[in-house]
């Protein structure tokens, strides 16, 4: 188990460099995704899904992020996630927590963005994506 984990980390470390000149923040081939996008899917599941719903599709109380990413820039996305946002009134009780101090989110923020962007662009369908080369 330990080796698998170390290997995953090593792969992760390599990915950003490999993707540096790509325009898209994700890679999807025949419905399969690269390791970074897959990791984004997974980190999303750990930290965001309980509010934004499975596959980024929104819930009864938090926005559909596949829609949001059609108008939010990468910077605006990162700013919202790092600092959070509150929208409280007598009829709304919406809180987007700040993740600035959360290792598992900050470290993989670009992966999460890439995954959601792939969903938003329609490049990736719903459910758990398969990884390229598996």
């Amino acid at each position, binding site marked *: *188990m330990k080796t698998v984990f170390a290997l995953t980390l090593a792969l992760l470390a390599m990915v950003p460099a490999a993707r540096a000149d790509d325009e898209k923040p994700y890679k999807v081939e025949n419905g399969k995704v690269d390791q970074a996008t897959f990791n984004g899917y997974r980190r999303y599941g750990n*930290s965001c899904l*309980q509010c934004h719903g499975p596959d980024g599709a*929104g819930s009864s*109380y938090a926005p559909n992020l*596949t829609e949001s990413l059609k108008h939010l820039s990468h910077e605006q996305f990162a700013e919202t996630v790092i600092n959070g946002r509150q929208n409280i009134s007598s009829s709304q*009780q919406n809180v987007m927590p700040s993740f600035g101090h959360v290792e*598992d989110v900050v470290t993989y923020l670009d992966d999460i963005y890439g995954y959601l962007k792939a969903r938003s662009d329609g490049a990736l369908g719903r*459910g758990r994506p398969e990884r390229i080369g598996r």
Partner: protein
Amino acid sequence: MLRRVALACALAVTATGASANPELLRMQRDPNQWVMPNGNYASWRYSELNQITRENVGNLKPTWQFSTGVLRGHEGGPLVVGEVMYIHTPFPNRVFALDLNNPGRVLWRYEPTQDPTVIGVMCCDTVNRGPAYADGKIILSQADTTVVALDAKTGKEVWKVKNGDPAKGETATMAPMVFGDKVLIGISGGEYGIRGHVTAYNLADGKQAWRAYSVGTDEDIKFDPQKTMSMGQPVGANSSIKTWEGDQWKMGGGSTWGWFSYDPDLNLIYYGSGNPGTWNPVQRPGDNKWSMTIFARDATTGVAKWVYQMTPHDEWDYDGVNEMVLVDNLQVGNQRVAKALVHMDRNGFGYTLNRENGQLMVAQKFDPAVNWATHVDMETGRPQVVSQYSTRAQGEDNNTKNICPAALGTKDQQPSAWSPKASLLFVPTNHVCMDYEPFRVSYSAGQPFIGATLSMYPPQGSDNLGNFIAWNPGSGKIAWSKPERFSVWSGALATAGDVVFYGTLEGYLKAVDTKDGKELFSYRTPSGIIGNVNTFTHKGKQYVAVMSGVGGWAGIGMAAGLQGESEGLGAVGAYKSLSDYTQLGGVLTVFALPN
């Protein structure tokens, strides 16, 4: 003079033992009122009222409604004490006292001031399962873990105490329970690596009487190594921490967000604990005791009499918090069990135990789809896990497929109803399976500590996501089963009129026949129902009441953007069409027969 009377009273209370609360003991037997969330101390959700019967229930009509002004998921249900009904809402946790003499008129309303950041650490919507009543007080457990006692007449605060710390992910969703001179309350936060506990506060002044953790040292969990029993044996020293690696027990979970039951004769309280630490089992080897456990504790001291761990080393998030139904004189095989405990667990097994000593009598599947274990070994009490569905055996970073039930369980907290007349338990259930892939996460206080991705969908060959079933707890068999389009996420009510009521996620209040589940009545309320049904009388007439207001775990899958998506069966594959049926909004509806 006055002082002497007060002293005499105080003495009388001590003389009858700390557990006596004659007023509440009497009131919970009175079918005209509904004074605790599950109807009585035994959590029956049963009423002796019989004006509404299987013959006339078809004529039931809504008589009045009341909007709470809050949108998110409304769990729990109304209390009725005398001529006043008390209802509550999710965050901001309003409480309304409504006058039954002037239906819907607000006698008082209370809204606490809470730091909204707590909303960000509530795992599955901002639900609350209602306040408790006792001794002229309404006791509310707020989202931010503040427990506040209000004067039932005026809504004024009597005392207030803080039960946990939202900065660590500790929140509150459950209903408190009063037994004797104490109020008992648990804690939520199983998805944040908290360490669960139940705490008793003095009803009079809110002072802490005792606290017992689910995991930790013998002292913390209030176990007596020689006297606390499990499967007929003393648990021995360090029974919890020796089942964890290193000090992982410190983020060991075992949150306590379900329901309490109480046997006044045995002076024992009963409840269950939730999932251990992260959802990634590989990261926490061992049985992870005492997560996923039924506890029987002495109500006065908190010391555990017996425990039974249903799902050792959880690999699927099968929290053990569902209600404990205390059934008397139950026929189990050729044995008559004077004092039984029946529990329909998230893990898909219906358990019957002897509640005096924790002896396991029955453990059978209550949905044939359940596949993660073949059976429960009656000698050891351990489920026999099927390796194909073991997320531990399949390992980290592997997607284990087609596990039934899904993490939301064959049944979640939505409480069942026991009819002593029909000798059947009526159970709202989920019929959902999942893929589950564990991965490594690090712990950070107040942050999600989940470590698994899930997809949920109906079992192969099914297109219904729920069933409403009748269960025989003596034989461990399903008497009848009525399919529902969505999970049944509403607490049931059984009555002496031979009908059972429950709500559906689309928003129908339904009444079915106790003998065969035949639908006798249905009415569309304004939003999906995840609340619990109750009944009471006012001026001699029987009423039925329920809160609608979709949300909770079910609402996470209820986004407008999901419609029309057909690829895959992502988690909300399961709930994707719910938004075609209902939208948010908390409303109370009260029903009666026409005059």
